[in-house]
């Protein structure tokens, strides 16, 4: 089973073959507070690394979620807008926001693993 990787913008990425399941990290969830809205992208949307693909909104603030890789949206989690608690689940367990078909797998190398992400969090705040 693939491990979960992380971006500096607090996206969590689970790689299943050539598809990346993307959600947001626990840190991001705590920073945002309870979500009240999530806006999903259209399936088929082409994304470049760093493109905004979703918006998550809490009572405190709204935040964009960015694509960790180049690729194409193959599925959006249609259950999430009606059940926002899903965001807290593990990526593979329903916590994903979109699945992106990866064009360039080498971009995954730039992501952080769990230990590196935890170290990165310590540098914040």
């Amino acid at each position, binding site marked *: 089973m693939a491990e979960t990787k992380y971006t500096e913008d607090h996206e969590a990425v689970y790689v299943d073959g050539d598809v990346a399941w993307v959600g947001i990290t626990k840190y991001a969830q705590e920073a945002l507070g*309870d979500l*009240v*809205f999530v806006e999903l992208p259209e399936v088929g949307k082409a994304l470049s690394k760093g493109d905004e693909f979703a918006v998550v909104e809490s009572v*405190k*603030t709204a935040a964009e979620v960015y694509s960790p890789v180049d690729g194409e949206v193959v599925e959006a989690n249609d259950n999430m807008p009606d059940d926002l608690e899903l965001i807290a689940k593990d990526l593979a367990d329903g916590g994903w926001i979109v699945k992106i078909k990866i064009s360039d797998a080498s971009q995954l190398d730039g992501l952080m693993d769990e230990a590196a992400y935890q170290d990165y969090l310590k540098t914040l*705040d």
Partner: protein
Amino acid sequence: MVAEKAIMDMTEDHNPQHDGDCALHYEENLLWEKERSDSPGVDLPEPQGTPSRTGVAERGDIGLPQVSEPQALRHFVRMSTWNYSIDHGFFPLGSCTMKHNPRLNEKVARNPGFAHIHPMQPESTVQGALGLMYELQEWLAELTNLPGVCLSPAAGAHGELAGMMTIRRAHEQKGEIQKRKIVLTPDSAHGTNPATAVTCGFEVRNMPTSETGILTMEAFKEALYATDPDGADIAGMMVTNPNTCGLFEKDIIEIADLLHEAGGYFYMDGANFNALVGKIRPGDFGVDVMHINLHKTFSTPHGGGGPGSGPICCTEELAQFMPVPTVIKNGDTYKLETIEDRPASVGRLKGYQGQFGMHVRALSYMLSHGADGLKRVSEDAVLNANYILRQLEGDYFAPYAGQGPCMHEALVTDKFQKEQGVQTLDIAKALIEKGFHPMTVYFPLTRPGTMLIEPTETESKDSIDRFITVMKDIANEAKTNDNAADHFHNFPLSSPRRRLDEVKAARKPQLRWKTA
């Protein structure tokens, strides 16, 4: 019995769960929930035999509340007792100055010569009023060292729009608008800055502020030259100074010079001008156009007491493009200009001449303080904020305190308290419980859990000390309470309504009133 029960509740667990009135606490239902009486406040005869001229069938009872004048009056007065205002107490709302509105200004504004005139009167009959506006323009020009002044924008964001339209018009006149599409803003900007730039057809490029909370030359240069080696695609920059971290942008002169070399204009968000008045003039550090919030800096009422008023001031070069009208003086006669007087103008952005009542109050404030008094106002606002910062920096994390004094706002965060599960929102709710209006929370966005405190110059040391004591008590409670997270999550306890479920309200909003 109800009252007795309520008093028990209040003394035993500080929780006035009374369902009626208790001492000076009033419960009040919606007007729709009142029993509808047969005695409405207005008693009009039924129309007899008048055919409808609109072609619309006559409507039946549409269910409006029927209450008499005293019922309506009491309803709103009782509701008003649930409110908190600057006239109730300390209101440290950083990022939105809430300072005392001197009553002298109100007295002057009620002078019949000001209060009872109409914007459509012949100009020859309102020369005094126009003269007052002219003098206010002169004061603002002097205080900013920016000679073009347009008083008409209705508030801060409207002033931003006027200013950025002015910049856009300047680029249009030079034939450069097609290639100059980008406006730079730091991440500490007021949200209205990027919104205004986009509204005016520009793209926004973000500049990250440094660890120190200010804009660095490195970040600025990187943004300025990111897509063109000469910055020839940059239309301008929008910067708040002092910024929203309460800090003066100390590299601003060099930054403005480079921006001007690249052909961009410098818009300053003047929301925080009250820290600078009489001390430094924005025109001297490279600002091309800025707005001024008369309703903050110059003490005219706002936050329900408004309306606001957001004049803009600009350089000689840009003055030809700013909106009409300004007041011009021909010999001894004052006149509101029209587009014919200044054809290069972006045109009219506001009906008539702007918020004249606020112009009266602002000039009254300036004249009653005088030039030396205004300078003292800025000094005291900065002094008070620094007093709070130094008193609280041990109890709360103060990310920028190490680098020297702040301006008129002190910034702390919930970093220490978060370790006990107590967050900025909980601290704000605890302040409500302890009788204070909270500061601005979760803004600026440069740090997590920010609290921006602006005491203003009008608070006494005694009142600031009481606030400091309460803030220290809250920090202490968060530290020592074994179950701090739950304890704080219950605040406020004694307010007319307890903490609202904002998440449920947003997820499952009830948009229609239904009687039980």
